[in-house]
């Protein structure tokens, strides 16, 4: 078989490449050094131009190559350096000094299953090198994307360590299927999103299991041309992560890195003290015509205790991270090893995220044709969680709501439990007890490993086969003792403790086989082709056990439970079977064309629609290569490009196309009950994407800019379509509706000063995305988010509006005569009802981006990174509790309540407080605020200790640095922090602040030593 291939390919080659004859030639040697510091450069690739004849420099930067004749040109390439072409002439020693690449044009970029040089890209790809986030103490790699790439919007849902983030590439494409991008680490799809649920909106994050310090670079694929190779998984964008690997002929370097710091909440909400609250409550009761004394609101008695609950549950957290890594290589074997320990205390008592991880990567060239390698990452995280905001018994939320009249401890120093006579009862639970008493540990183990083998049948015809597994094991170990709401208050739980033990396993096996071929014909026509097949098999196992009625709080595992009445186990397989291909052609690197496609079969769709084809095409024209521009010396590169294609989304549950019956029980017997209706036509969501872009580079790369504009339309939206209940069912999974995303993105990189050792560079990225629901196949208003008083829900999905639209009454102000809220009577019926609710804002920003300045001078480096969002609204639902106009006396109030209307003529935006009156507290635009912000995301000051000192202690480098994250935020938002989302991961209800834990700031110092 192999021989047969060889014959065919050889004949093809012989036909199209008649000019190539290999001849014994002359040997050239030399040394490659860096222009910056004069150091020798190992691992630089040297190729004889127009051939595949190549070598690389050894640990001392030396090389030796045989060239066919004296007219040869050598091409020197290395990542991060400007590619140089050197005519050999009649020299036999060619020493070369290489410049650091400013314009990144020659940078090698990973594009799906292949790599290319940045200048040859025809699609839209954003690259982020690890340099950009190495000094920011990010827990997870998705956090590292924030503010770094145009078109990539990252919102951290809260200040919980290891917590959930929302990552959106060019907007939301789906209402009910996932909108998270596809994350690929070294070619393998990895688990993302939350691993466990049930902590009141504040989820955890599977990506926090990977150590960001092992990342070399991240590419975000944004348009159809770049993404279509990932077909049905690509609609939400693709994030490609390349991890660090050893380089050929690299001297072994060992790097040790230590970081230690403190975390603290960015800002605290401002709440009333006992006396202020008592005055307010008495006023509210009096306004309702009742006697406050009779309700127990007695001056000098009720406010005898004044507890600042936030002080009771907040702390400064200790952050520490230690990493040791080693990398190096010979001409045949390369390796990278690292070990990392990270420990981050949350700002809430008892909250802590710690992770240990180790990575080993080996690449080996067995022969000139055969190479293989493997990479293994193992990590283990322990997440000690506390209950989040969307729970009455949450910790931070409980502290913001608890009445200052009560204390957490009694005179004996013991915590008050629920239904204690001296403690405010339901809906208040002692937040200190809710923090310190429960055990809520999530223990996760991740194994990400793969092996590959590569064989070069012919020069430039490579076969590569890779098999990988992403294995995630999750153990959730919970015990709520009797002092907590769950274990001691809820009668249905039994009030004698509550234990849960959940395990789950998410494993993805990926097998990829690709064949790549590239050639250059007549030094003009370059063709590169790639074809491949891929199998992805996913296994999801889960099990859980619940125990109640524990003998005492000394017995906290389910072995001791009096009643073990709920348990489950489940196993689900799913998979993809795919073929894909890509052909690129360019003429003199001037006119470039790419065609990409993937044919995917998915187990998630019905037999009628199991397979889908996702094609794309793109063209680019490097105008700067044209004769007429060759004399414009200030212009280095100018490329225009356009792409068009289709991608899909298959991120829904399994077996949804089937009509099914599931196990059911009755009076102790088990049987079968109807579960779902069949839809054999269920299929992928499809996104049609069009993109145009310009890449330009001026003044020797000191100014480069990329501008992209796109127009995407997603149709066949996966949606659980409501149907009449007379059918016996409430909904059937269908494909209905359309969503459009249009936007524009700009990235500018400049080197403002580069002389006499002083270098100042600036990165700016700006993005605008307009999201709109174009069509929905249901006339029913589709509500989302929370149910709310006075309007049906906090969010709505409406044609013509973006996803994340806020819904409620329109607040027109406070009547100076009565102090009551005035709402817009939209339907003019003279009454204020939920029918008067309307669109009152949306969570999507009009503009977002990042702005980074870097300065370096004689060993010092300073980086200042701003990140911002403009034009987004936040629904401050916290205020419906904390400025509740007297509707309930159970909750503490914000100092904003001091601005309330008190007497006729008062002009204010806070209505009068009247006990048990909900009218003034209806869900309205009173709670919708401008959530725009500019945040000083990070400032890092570093110093490289001079080599002369360092070498005395037998080190090759020492860098000390101090880094501060989230230290300053400019915003008009009245809550503590505008960057949040109580419903982490939600698409239809983003940007709601509901007593959500604000972000944390981190101040740390670090030291990096290289041996």
């Amino acid at each position, binding site marked *: 078989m192999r021989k047969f291939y060889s014959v065919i390919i050889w004949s093809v080659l012989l036909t199209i490449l008649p000019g190539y004859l290999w001849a014994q030639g002359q040997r050239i040697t030399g040394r490659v050094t860096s222009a910056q510091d004069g150091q020798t450069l190992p691992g630089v690739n040297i190729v004889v131009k127009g051939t595949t004849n190549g070598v690389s420099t050894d640990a001392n930067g030396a090389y030796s190559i045989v060239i066919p004749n004296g007219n040869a040109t050598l091409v020197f390439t290395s990542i991060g350096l400007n590619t140089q072409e050197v005519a050999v002439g009649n020299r036999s020693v060619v020493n070369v000094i290489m410049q650091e690449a400013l314009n990144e044009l020659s940078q090698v970029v990973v594009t799906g299953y292949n790599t290319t040089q940045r200048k040859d890209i025809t699609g839209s790809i954003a690259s982020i090198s690890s340099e950009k986030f190495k000094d920011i103490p990010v827990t997870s790699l998705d956090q590292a994307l924030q503010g770094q790439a145009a078109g990539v919007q990252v919102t951290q849902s809260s200040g919980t360590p290891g917590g959930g983030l929302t990552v959106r590439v060019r907007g939301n494409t789906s209402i009910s299927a996932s909108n998270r991008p596809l994350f690929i680490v070294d070619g393998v799809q990895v688990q993302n999103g939350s691993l466990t649920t049930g902590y009141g909106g504040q989820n955890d994050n599977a990506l926090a299991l990977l150590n960001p310090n092992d990342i070399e670079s991240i590419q975000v694929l944004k348009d159809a041309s770049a993404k279509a190779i990932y077909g049905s998984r690509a609609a939400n964008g693709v994030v490609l992560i390349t991890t660090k690997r050893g380089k050929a002929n690299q001297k072994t370097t060992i790097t040790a890195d230590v970081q230690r710091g403190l975390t603290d909440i960015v800002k605290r909400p401002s709440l009333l003290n006992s006396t202020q609250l008592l005055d307010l409550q008495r006023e509210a009761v009096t306004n309702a015509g009742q006697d406050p004394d009779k309700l127990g609101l007695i001056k000098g008695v009720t406010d005898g205790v004044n507890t600042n609950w936030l002080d009771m549950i907040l702390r400064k957290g200790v952050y520490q991270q230690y990493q040791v890594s080693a990398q190096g290589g010979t001409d045949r074997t390369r390796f990278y090893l690292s070990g990392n320990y990270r420990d981050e205390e949350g700002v809430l008592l008892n909250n802590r995220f710690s992770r240990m991880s180790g990575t080993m990567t080996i690449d080996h060239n067995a022969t000139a044709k055969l190479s293989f390698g493997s990479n293994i990452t193992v990590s283990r995280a322990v997440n000690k969680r506390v209950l989040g905001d969307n729970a009455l018994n949450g910790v931070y939320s409980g502290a913001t709501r608890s009445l200052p009249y009560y204390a957490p401890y009694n005179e004996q120093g013991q915590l008050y439990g629920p239904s204690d006579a001296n403690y405010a009862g339901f809906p208040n639970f002692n937040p200190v007890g809710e923090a310190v008493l429960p055990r809520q540990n999530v223990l996760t183990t991740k194994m990400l490993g793969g092996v590959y083998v590569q064989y070069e049948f012919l020069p430039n015809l490579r076969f590569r086969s890779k098999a990988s597994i992403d294995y995630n094991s999750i153990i959730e170990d919970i015990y709520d003792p009797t002092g907590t709401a769950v274990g001691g208050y*809820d*009668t*249905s739980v*039994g009030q004698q403790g509550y234990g849960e033990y959940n395990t789950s396993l998410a494993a993805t096996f990926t*097998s990829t*086989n690709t064949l790549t071929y590239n050639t250059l014909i007549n030094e003009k026509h370059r063709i590169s082709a790639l074809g491949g*097949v*891929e*199998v992805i098999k996913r296994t999801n196992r889960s099990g859980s056990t619940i125990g109640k*009625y524990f003998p005492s709080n000394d017995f906290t595992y389910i072995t001791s439970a009096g*009643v073990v*009445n709920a348990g489950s186990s*489940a*196993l*689900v397989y*799913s*998979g*993809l*079977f*795919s*073929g894909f291909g890509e052909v690129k052609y360019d003429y003199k690197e001037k006119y470039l064309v790419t065609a990409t496609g993937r044919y995917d*079969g*998915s*187990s998630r769709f019905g037999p009628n629609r*199991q*397979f889908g084809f996702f094609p794309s095409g793109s063209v680019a024209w490097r105008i700067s290569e044209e004769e007429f521009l060759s004399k414009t010396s200030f212009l280095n590169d100018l490329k225009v490009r356009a792409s068009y294609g289709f991608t899909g989304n298959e991120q829904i549950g*399994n*077996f949804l196309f*089937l*009509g*099914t*019956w*599931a196990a*059911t*029980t*009755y*009076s*102790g017997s*088990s*049987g*079968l*009950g*109807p*579960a779902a*209706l*069949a839809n054999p036509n269920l299929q992928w969501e499809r996104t049609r994407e069009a993109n145009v872009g310009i890449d330009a580079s001026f003044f020797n790369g000191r100014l480069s800019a990329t501008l992209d504009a796109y127009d995407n339309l997603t149709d066949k939206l996966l949606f659980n379509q*409501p*149907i*009449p*209940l*007379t*059918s*016996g*069912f*409430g909904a059937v999974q269908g494909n209905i509706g359309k969503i459009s995303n249009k936007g524009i993105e700009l990235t500018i990189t400049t080197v403002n000063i580069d002389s006499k050792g002083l270098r100042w560079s600036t990165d700016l990225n700006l993005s605008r995305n307009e999201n709109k629901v174009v069509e929905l196949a*249901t*006339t*029913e208003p589709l509500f989302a988010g929370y149910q709310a*008083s006075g309007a*049906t829900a906090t969010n709505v999905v409406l044609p013509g509006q973006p996803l994340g639209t806020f819904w409620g009454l329109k607040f027109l102000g406070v009547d100076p005569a009565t102090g009551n809220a005035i709402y817009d009577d939209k339907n003019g019926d003279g009454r204020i009802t939920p029918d008067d609710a309307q669109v009152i804002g949306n969570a999507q920003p009009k503009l977002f981006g990042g702005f980074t300045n870097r300065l370096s001078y004689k060993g010092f480096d300073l980086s200042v990174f701003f990140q911002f969002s403009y034009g987004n609204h936040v629904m401050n639902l916290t205020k419906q509790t904390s400025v509740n106009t007297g509707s309930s006396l159970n909750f503490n109030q914000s100092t904003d309540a001091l601005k309330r209307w008190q007497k006729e003529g008062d002009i204010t935006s806070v209505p009068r407080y009247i006990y048990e009156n909900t009218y003034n507290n209806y869900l309205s635009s009173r709670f919708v605020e401008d959530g725009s912000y500019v945040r000083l995301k990070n400032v890092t000051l570093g110093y490289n200790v001079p080599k002369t000192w360092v070498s005395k202690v037998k080190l090759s480098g020492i860098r000390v640095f101090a880094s501060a994250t989230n230290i300053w935020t400019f915003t008009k938002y009245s809550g503590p922090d505008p960057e949040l989302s109580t419903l982490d991961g939600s698409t239809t209800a983003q940007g709601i602040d509901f007593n959500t834990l604000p972000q944390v700031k981190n101040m740390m110092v670090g030291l990096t030593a290289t041996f």
Partner: protein
Amino acid sequence: MKSYITCFILTLTVLTSCKDVLEPTPYDIRIDDLTLKTAADAPLVRIGLYSAFRAMTSSVVIAGDFTADNIKHNGTFTSYQEFGTKQITSTNADVATFWAGVYQTNYVANFILERLPNVVSGITSDSRKTLTAEARFLRGLANFYGVYTFGDIPLVTTTDQATNRNIARSPKATVLAAVLADYQAALADLPDDSSTGAAYLSKRVVQAALARYYLYQKNWAQAETYATQVISSGKFTLVPDYNTIVNVNFTAESIFEVGYTQNDDPGTLNTLFVSRREVIPSDQIVIALNSTESGTRVATIAFNVAQQQGNDNGWTVKKYGTAIEGNANIVVFRLAEMYLIRAEARAQLGKLVGANSAVEDLTVLRTRAKAVAVTAAAQADVLLAIERERQYELAFEGHRWYDLVRTGRAQAVMSAFSPNWSSRFEVWPIPQSEILRNPALQGAQNPGY
């Protein structure tokens, strides 16, 4: 075809079966087309049928007691606030839940009635007849509750989706005729007694349902006949202590009762009444149950002084405990109701006092409750005594609202209870979502909603 060729080619290259990846075995679910193809599934879908019916029984309690004067709202959920303040709207979540319960029961029943005839072997004719009868009876009972809750309702007789997604309301009389046909067919084929207790159907259950059916139809003679058949069957006896009714599952007087265990108890009513105290007994029912006429039936509710503050009268409904407490079941028919049906039928037929009279039947219940004797003698007084007796005996078992509406007393009683009461609340609204989704229901809302 193209797909299969692709699959074949892919399979050759990666040495993994295409089918293996793309058509994984589903665990824990059964594909619709394969369900009830063989006799082995018959006992399984039977459980599914009972389970579907069971899901609607808590809705019946909510309709029967929450719509009437038995509760007041004490929690935070909007839908119960609407019941408490008598401002029920067509978007009320519990209204849609009730509607869903009716049609989920209909779906499973119709599924059995359509598929079972095609199962040719492996099932005895007795089993086939029993399962068919069970499907017809529970379909009939679901529609009975549906029609008295919503008025005219769509009559669903098939599992065909196209038909059922575009189906108009049938007149109440048509639905009731279908209910009667289902009951009568079931009466013929069900066994005399359920061998597995009150959780499953027998002829007695159908007789009890017919007694209630004729009572609602004001066919007093038939109501008396069927109630007598159940009472004199000797299969059921009144428990001596009313506390047993409140605190124990499957009592000796239970005719049909849906069963929960710790594994499947959703705790719907326990959550509303006990855990959250979302609704509490109204002041009126607290007074009524504490009266001398009520006697030991005050055990239905309990008082806790710590909870008495503001709006909260401190009383809690005790009839629905947790499964571990052994009283999570919901009773559909019990013997006491048969006495009350017979008493009402006899009173209407003029048999007021003496042997085989209304008062004699009432006295049975009063005696058990250690309450004062019945003093009424005139027909109107006896009927009012029966109305009160039903309230004492059957409080929070889903009867009060249906009773007041069928006797024409709703307007008088409820107007006195709540200023918001309107005659439109004699039926519930059709769920708003159904009107939006089902074209045949457009413009077909009940008057006043």
